[in-house]
């Protein structure tokens, strides 16, 4: 079956190029160690808007425009816009699509959206269905808090294993031709439920999905984990990364120092008091499209496996006693 290899992996014959990216982060993320790798750091977490939802939409549009500008493209030259976010009915993505005027496919993969967008975009380009695809995702700490947890001014205490939703947006422009890192393979994950019920410990809920997709990728492609500069999970955080490492080593995959998590890179966990690390759609998006992309352009990296993870619950499902299912998609990026 042509481009599909093994159980879940697609090898791309003409690997699509990430020709440009755009990233915007909130003021808090701008105090983190990766601040210099983002195109814009907001000074106002509302970005001059009257609500957090409008602010999220505004930064998503900004990130898209930055990606287009960096490549010298106008929105009319883009065939498809693939985007998603965490807010109910993915309103940030669809309202941004209204503003950009590009034919739109809305995605929902919770925090795995960055990888989902890259994966579907790459398949569409390699399949000859499009020439240029813009993919983007966003999250906003306060918009997510009020939807998933408590009102933002509510005085509750956070758990040590809780993660901090990243305020930001990341966009990437994919093309069949051009300069930049290429997407050589994509592994779409299965939804897994390992019995997690605590919506505050999403790292633990997502770790088995990440491990499953990573194992699947290596079995399908026959590659060795050590031949990657970086195997980067999306937002497992400290607890999730530890659990994922355990799961992998039980299956005979012992990952070394090249195994990292975007959620552990974006904040200074000593100083910023974010507990187990960052999370949210924007977490893997801004780290990959900002920091990792720049390291690719500086030739510091040549082969990276991005494994963005998503927790697929809603406040309604967990209140009704359902477990938290999770997913992970892997994207092989190579210069």
């Amino acid at each position, binding site marked *: 079956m042509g481009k599909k290899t093994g159980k879940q992996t697609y090898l791309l014959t003409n690997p699509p190029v990430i020709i440009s990216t755009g990233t915007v982060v909130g003021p808090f993320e701008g105090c983190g160690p990766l601040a210099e790798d983002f195109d814009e750091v907001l000074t106002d977490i509302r970005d001059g808007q*009257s*609500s957090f939802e409008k602010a999220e939409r505004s930064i998503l549009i900004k990130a898209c425009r930055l990606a287009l500008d960096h490549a010298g493209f106008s929105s009319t030259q883009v065939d498809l816009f693939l985007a998603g976010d965490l807010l109910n009915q993915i309103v940030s993505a669809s309202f941004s699509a209204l503003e950009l005027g590009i034919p739109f496919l809305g995605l929902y993969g919770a925090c795995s959206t960055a990888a989902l967008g890259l994966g579907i975009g790459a398949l569409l380009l390699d399949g000859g269905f499009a020439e240029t695809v813009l993919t983007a995702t966003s999250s906003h700490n306060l918009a997510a808090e*009020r939807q998933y947890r*408590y*009102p*933002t*001014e*509510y*005085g*509750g*205490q*956070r*758990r*040590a*294993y809780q993660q901090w939703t990243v305020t930001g947006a990341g966009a990437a422009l994919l093309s069949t031709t051009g300069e930049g890192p290429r997407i050589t393979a994509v592994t779409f994950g299965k939804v897994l*439920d*390992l*019995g*997690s*019920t605590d919506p505050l*410990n999403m790292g*633990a809920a997502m770790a*088995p999905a990440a491990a499953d997709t990573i194992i699947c990728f290596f079995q399908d492609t026959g590659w060795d984990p050590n031949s990657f500069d970086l195997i980067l999970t999306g937002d497992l955080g400290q*607890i999730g990364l*530890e*659990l994922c490492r*355990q799961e992998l080593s039980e299956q005979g995959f012992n990952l070394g120092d090249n195994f990292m998590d975007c959620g552990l890179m974006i904040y200074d966990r000593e100083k910023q008091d974010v507990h187990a690390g960052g999370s949210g759609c924007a977490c893997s998006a801004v780290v990959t499209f900002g920091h990792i992309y720049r390291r690719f352009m500086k030739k510091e990296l040549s082969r990276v496996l991005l494994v963005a993870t998503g927790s697929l619950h809603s406040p309604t499902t967990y*209140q*009704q*006693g*359902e*477990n938290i299912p999770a997913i992970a998609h892997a994207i092989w990026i190579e210069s």
Partner: protein
Amino acid sequence: MAKKKLTPAQRKYQAKVRQVEPRPHYLRHTFLAFISGGLVCVLGQVLIDLYSWILNLPPEEASNPAVATMIFLGALLTGLGVFDKLAKYAGAGLAVPVTGFANSVVASALEFREEGLIYGVSAKMFLLAGPVITFGVVTAFIIGLLYAIFQ
């Protein structure tokens, strides 16, 4: 909200999660809640004495304006964006007294102002405080009933 029965694989994984999950610092939380809760009570007592002295009221009646003042302070600190920062350290010390109730109402009301005065602020104001009110009223009703029967 019945919990689902876990399969052996799920149980095995959840046992691993419990090993990795950090435990809360119970001693530290309890100590901070004791100190901060105590300070809130001291402030409450100072207010009762003050109102009793200024308004020349018996202490039982002076507690009403004192409670109202504490609610006002909780609401004001929430509006100024300070309450959640204090509560991060104080925990139950600020949540259990009436200040916590004020915070939960004002935080909800503030949060939903963008959705309008009716469907936003008014409808969502008791989002967090609702269960407290419901259980408070139900408990009061039962106690009142028992009191009437066995008096």
